[in-house]
C-alpha cells in the first residue's frame, strides 16, 4: 500500500490494490504488455477505456468525465489508440466483478481500463481503477484515489500517468501545467499576457491583463512560482510571480536590462542575462541572499542559460565566436566550451529533465528548426522545421517537448498565426496545443506536487 502526500493540492490519496485479488488463477504465460517509447515506429496500442462505474447519476457523470480525460491524455501521447466505446460488449457494471476477456479480445483491445467512482458518506470522492492485460488476462495495476469531487480532473490525469508508467516504464506527464504568453492584436502593437492552463488546455486563465509587455515565463521546479520578463514602467526586468497569490516582485537591482531567466533545479537560484552598454552576460542570483554572481565576461551576447538537472552545469548561447552557438559551463562559470558545431546558428538551449539531451532552436538557410543534441554536442537530431519555430520546453519525463510556431504574414501583416505545438523527442506525433488565442513561449511545469 502506498500513501502519497500532496502538500499543495492535498487530499489526494492513492491506494494500491492488493495485486492479484482480481487476477485470474491460471493466466497463460504471455509477454508483458509494453510500449517501447524510444522506438521510432511504435504502433499505438489499442486500449479500451470504460467509463468508471457509478451507482448514482452524479457518480456516473464523474465516471464518464474521468474516462474521457484519461482517454484524451493517452490518445494525445500518440502511444495509445483508445477504442470507440460503442464497440464495447461488456458493461462497466458487469466489469465490476471480472472482465470477460474474450469480449475485449474480440474488439482487439490489448489493454483494458475499468473502475468505479464512489461518493462517500462524508462527501469525498473515491476513484478506483484497474488496468488489465487482455491477452494475459491479468491485472497490471490497481489503485484508488481519495479526493474532493471538484478535484476529479487531477485524479484523472494521475490515473492516466499511472497507466502510461505501467505500460511504457517511463514516468507520465499528464498531471502538469503549462504557462505561456497569450498574444492578440496586430504585430506592431501586440498585446501579450501571461496565461496558465493544464497540459490538456483545461483550467485556462490569464495571470496578467495585457497592459504590460511580458515574455518568456518559466516554472519554478519546487514552488508555485514563475520567473519571466516584464516591461513594467518601460524598465524591462526579470520578475518573480507567485501563481497562488498573484504577487509580483522584481529580481535584483541591476544597472541594465535583465532577461532570459530560468530557475536552478533546486529552485533556490535564478540564472539570467544582463544587457548593459551593448554587452550581454550571464548572471546567477541566489534567491535567499539576493546576491548575484557574474558567470560570463566575454564581450559578445551570452544569453539563454539553462541548468542541467543535477545543477552542476549550465548550457547557454553565445555569439563570441562570430555567430550564435551553444556552450556549456560549470554552474560557477568555469570551463566554458562550445558544443554546437553543425551548420547554421544554434540558440535557446534547454537541458532535458533526464539530463541526456539539450533541446535547441536552430537557424539555417532562412529556416528555423527545433532539435536535440547530447550535452557534448554529438547526436544532433532535428525534430521540426518551419518558417519560424522557437523556444522548446520539456515535459518532466524528458520524452515530449513543446515549442511555438509562427507562420508568415502577408504584405498587409495579416494571415500569420503563432501557436504552441507538442512533439515526441523521437520526432513523431506533432500536434497543436489548443489555446484560446495566439500563443508563444510555452513552459512546461514539473509534475504537480
Amino acid at each position, binding site marked *: 500500500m502506498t500513501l502519497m502526500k500532496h502538500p499543495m493540492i492535498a487530499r489526494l490519496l492513492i491506494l494500491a490494490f492488493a495485486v492479484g485479488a482480481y487476477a485470474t488463477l491460471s493466466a497463460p504465460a504471455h509477454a508483458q504488455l509494453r510500449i517501447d517509447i524510444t522506438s521510432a515506429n511504435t504502433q499505438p496500442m489499442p486500449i479500451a477505456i470504460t467509463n468508471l462505474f457509478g451507482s448514482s447519476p452524479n457518480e456516473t457523470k464523474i465516471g464518464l468525465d474521468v474516462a474521457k480525460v484519461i482517454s484524451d491524455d493517452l490518445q494525445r501521447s500518440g502511444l495509445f489508440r483508445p477504442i470507440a466505446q460503442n464497440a464495447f460488449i461488456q458493461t462497466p457494471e458487469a466489469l465490476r466483478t471480472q472482465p470477460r476477456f474474450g469480449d475485449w479480445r474480440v474488439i482487439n483491445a490489448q489493454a483494458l481500463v475499468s473502475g468505479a467512482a464512489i461518493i462517500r458518506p462524508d462527501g469525498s470522492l473515491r476513484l478506483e481503477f484497474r488496468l488489465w492485460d487482455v491477452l494475459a488476462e491479468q491485472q497490471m495495476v490497481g489503485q484508488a484515489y481519495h479526493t474532493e469531487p471538484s478535484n476529479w480532473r487531477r485524479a484523472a490525469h494521475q490515473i492516466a500517468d499511472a497507466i502510461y508508467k505501467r505500460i511504457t516504464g517511463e514516468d507520465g506527464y499528464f498531471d502538469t501545467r503549462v504557462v505561456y504568453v497569450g498574444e492578440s492584436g*496586430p*504585430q*506592431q*502593437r*501586440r498585446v*501579450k499576457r501571461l496565461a496558465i492552463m493544464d497540459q490538456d488546455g483545461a483550467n485556462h486563465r490569464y495571470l496578467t491583463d495585457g497592459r504590460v*509587455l511580458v*515574455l*518568456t515565463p518559466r516554472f519554478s521546479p519546487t514552488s508555485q512560482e514563475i520567473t519571466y*520578463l516584464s516591461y513594467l514602467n*518601460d524598465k*524591462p526586468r526579470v520578475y518573480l510571480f507567485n501563481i497562488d497569490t498573484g504577487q509580483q516582485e522584481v529580481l535584483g537591482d541591476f544597472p*541594465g*536590462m535583465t*532577461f*532570459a531567466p530560468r530557475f536552478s533545479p533546486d529552485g533556490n537560484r535564478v540564472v539570467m*542575462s544582463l*544587457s548593459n*552598454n*551593448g554587452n*550581454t552576460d550571464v548572471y546567477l542570483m541566489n534567491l535567499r541572499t539576493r546576491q548575484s554572481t557574474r558567470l560570463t565576461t566575454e564581450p559578445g*551576447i551570452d*544569453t*539563454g542559460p539553462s541548468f542541467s538537472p543535477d545543477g552542476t552545469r549550465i548550457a547557454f*548561447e553565445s*555569439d563570441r565566436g562570430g555567430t*550564435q552557438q551553444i556552450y556549456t559551463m560549470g554552474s560557477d562559470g568555469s570551463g566554458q566550451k562550445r558544443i554546437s558545431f553543425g551548420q547554421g546558428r544554434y*540558440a*535557446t538551449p534547454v537541458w532535458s529533465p533526464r539530463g541526456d539531451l539539450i533541446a535547441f*532552436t536552430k*537557424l539555417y538557410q*532562412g529556416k528555423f528548426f527545433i532539435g536535440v543534441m547530447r550535452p557534448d554536442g554529438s547526436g544532433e537530431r532535428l525534430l521540426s522545421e518551419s*518558417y*519560424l519555430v*522557437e*523556444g522548446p520546453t520539456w515535459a518532466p519525463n524528458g520524452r515530449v517537448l513543446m515549442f511555438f510556431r*509562427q507562420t*508568415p*504574414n*502577408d*504584405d*498587409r*501583416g*495579416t494571415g*500569420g498565426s503563432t501557436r504552441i505545438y507538442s512533439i515526441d523527442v523521437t520526432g513523431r506525433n506533432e500536434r497543436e496545443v489548443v489555446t484560446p488565442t495566439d500563443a508563444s*513561449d510555452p513552459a512546461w511545469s514539473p509534475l504537480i506536487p
Partner: protein
Amino acid sequence: MSLRILSAFAAVLLLAACESAPSDTGMAAGSGGASSSSSSANQGPRPGSQEDLVVNVGDRVFFDFDQYSVRQDQRAVLDRQAAWLKKYPEVTVTVEGHADERGTREYNIALGNRRATAAKNYLVALGINPNRVQTISYGKERPAVAGSNEQAWSQNRRAVTVVTARAGS
C-alpha cells in the same frame, strides 16, 4: 519646395499614425490631440518636439541583418539628431533598439540593446551628454512594419530616438 511638400506629407502620415498606433511611431506621451492640431502643414511641428524630430530630422536609423554597427548611409540621420539635440539642450531622449522577426527572442533582445547602444554612442561621440540619452531594447516585439519579407524586416531592424522630455515642457 519639394522638401516642404515632403514635410507636409510626413505630417499627414504622422497624424494618421497618431490615430492608429500612438506607441510605435515613437510619439512621446502627451503629444496627442493638442499637438496634432498645432502640427498642421502650414505651421509645422512644434520645435524640439517628437514631431519636429520625426519630420525635420529623422527619428530612426536602420541596420543590416544581425548587425549593429551604424551603416554609412544612416550616419547623416544621427548627425542631424546630434545637431538637433544641441539646439534643444533641455530635450532628453530614449533610443529604442529593435530587431526583425528572423531571430530568436532573447538573442534579439540583446541585439536590440546593441543597436540602441551603437546609436547612443554615435550621438555621444558627437558631443551629446550621455545622461541625456537612455536606451531600451524591444527585441522583435515591436515591429514598425508588419509583413514577413525583406522589405518589412529591413524597416524593423532599427534604432528609434524618442523624446522623453522636450523643449519648453
